[in-house]
């Protein structure tokens, strides 16, 4: 019996993971709020710690217009130069 695969056989886009940062000192870190309730409170605290304890050079704050859809290209473009991104996912 010959069975046709019903599964997705589309090749996923290839990408290499960014190398792990050895230090946050002097780096640019983007904080992405997906616009779920509570995300800004969490990221405020993270930003405070990044600046005071880890001496990051710059923090970029960005927000998705809705958590229900992927981030629009302009949001991704604005955080593209960051060395690291921290995303606040849920309520």
């Amino acid at each position: 019996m010959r069975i046709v695969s019903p599964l997705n056989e589309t090749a996923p886009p290839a990408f290499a993971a960014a190398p792990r940062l050895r230090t946050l000192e002097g780096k640019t870190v983007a904080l992405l709020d997906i616009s779920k309730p509570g995300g800004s409170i969490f990221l405020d605290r993270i930003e405070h710690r990044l600046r005071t304890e880890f001496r990051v050079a710059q923090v970029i704050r960005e927000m998705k217009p809705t958590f229900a859809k992927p981030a629009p290209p302009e949001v991704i473009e604005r955080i593209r130069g960051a060395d690291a991104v921290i995303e606040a996912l849920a309520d």
Partner: protein
Amino acid sequence: MIAILQTDCPTCRLIAPYLNKLADGPAPVTAISQDGEDATREFVRQMEIRFPVERDPEFELSRHFEVVTVPTLYVLDDQNRIVRKEPGFDKDTLNEVAALVGQAPIAGPYDGAPASKPGCTSRHLEVSTDDAAAAPLDMHSTRGHAASVADLADGEDAIEYCYRAFGDALPVVPPTVERVDAMVRAADRDPREVIARIPPCYGEATVEKIAANAVMAGCRPEMMRVLIPLMRAVSDERFNAHGVQATTHFAAPLILVNGPVRQELGFHSRQNVFSNVARANSTLGRALQLILLNLGGARPTTIDMSALGNPGKFSYCIAENEEENPWEPLHAEQGFTRDQSTITLFAAEPPHGVSEHNARTARGVLKAITYALATVWSYRNCTGFEAMVVLCPEHVRTIHRDGFSKRDVREFLFANTGIPLRCYQDGDSGEGAAQRSLYTEIVIDGEPCYRKFRTPESIKIVVAGGTAGKFSAVLGSWSVGPRGSQMVTYPI
């Protein structure tokens, strides 16, 4: 025995100790790793592998064995012919293989491992993630890839094979080449034509892939004429299947069928309309769900992490009972003529029943429905969602007798559904309370309330169900509007 493995596949890690036990027996075991040298060496060390592991850097062996998922265990006879091909992990199968080579059972029922677990897609069907020069995902081509075909060994149980290789919890009709061909012929299209890309992983819904899933769901070939527009609807950006499939909420795409196709293909719109009452409803709903899983990639164990899920994720498809509907049917409200067949998608919660057997007036029936509408999403949360009201024929007769048009029904429900201000006395705590400055204050039966819905059009009205029993239903939506999911209607 030959086992094809990946080093980061949880099912491959699960099966590894059992392969060690098989290797302790009389038949030699060799594994083929689809991964790099370092990853393979680490896998052998971590899993304390006691049998030889070869690598397959160009996937020549994987292609030769036509492996679809890993792990797959092949048992070869002394002339190197495949006598068994076993994808995934299954204790009964492992014990059968052990018996075949003269060993005692190797997998006990209470050894801590699950009885069975489906595997992962074979690496040769993916692009290697450490090859930065690999081609990017093609989102625009209208011609897709041919589906791969697996040859089952004689005597292999095709239904069990489909469970292990494709991983859906409910048994499926095996998508044999012959059945898929019949489905593709009914579509009268190039089997490799890409009809849509299914969110959230954007797998290519080629005619052939749609057909394979439709076969698995039990569809008849003529259902392809509904499935093609259904694919366009489900990948419509307004419907936002990306979010619907990935939310932790209850939402599942409800298919509503209108127009002459109901009679032509046997869609049922009367008693038990939400149940297992007709092959057309059940198999179309199931086909959509299988396509969302197999091509969209939102499996209920990984990307679809719904907290409680929805029984509609087995199948969720109703037809409107236009014959018992004295008003315009749903598709006519969307601008289609009555004799145009359509499918509509609405991201819906399961139905919430409303019993009202004693009210003799439109107002009495509709008041009962407003109290169910008031609980949609969460009682104090207003305006961020919609609802579908499925009116049963007996309620419709009472409402229509009092001279209500469909618009009157919608406006009555809109005007009379609200949450009393006293529910917000404990300040801003509780879902929806913090946004109350944005809500509209109205008075319902003398009581100050916040209006529950944003507009009358937030309430969708459909007639369905049997002519006995005064039971209607309210179906809450998911997040709506341009930031959520919008109802879409497509012609068939």
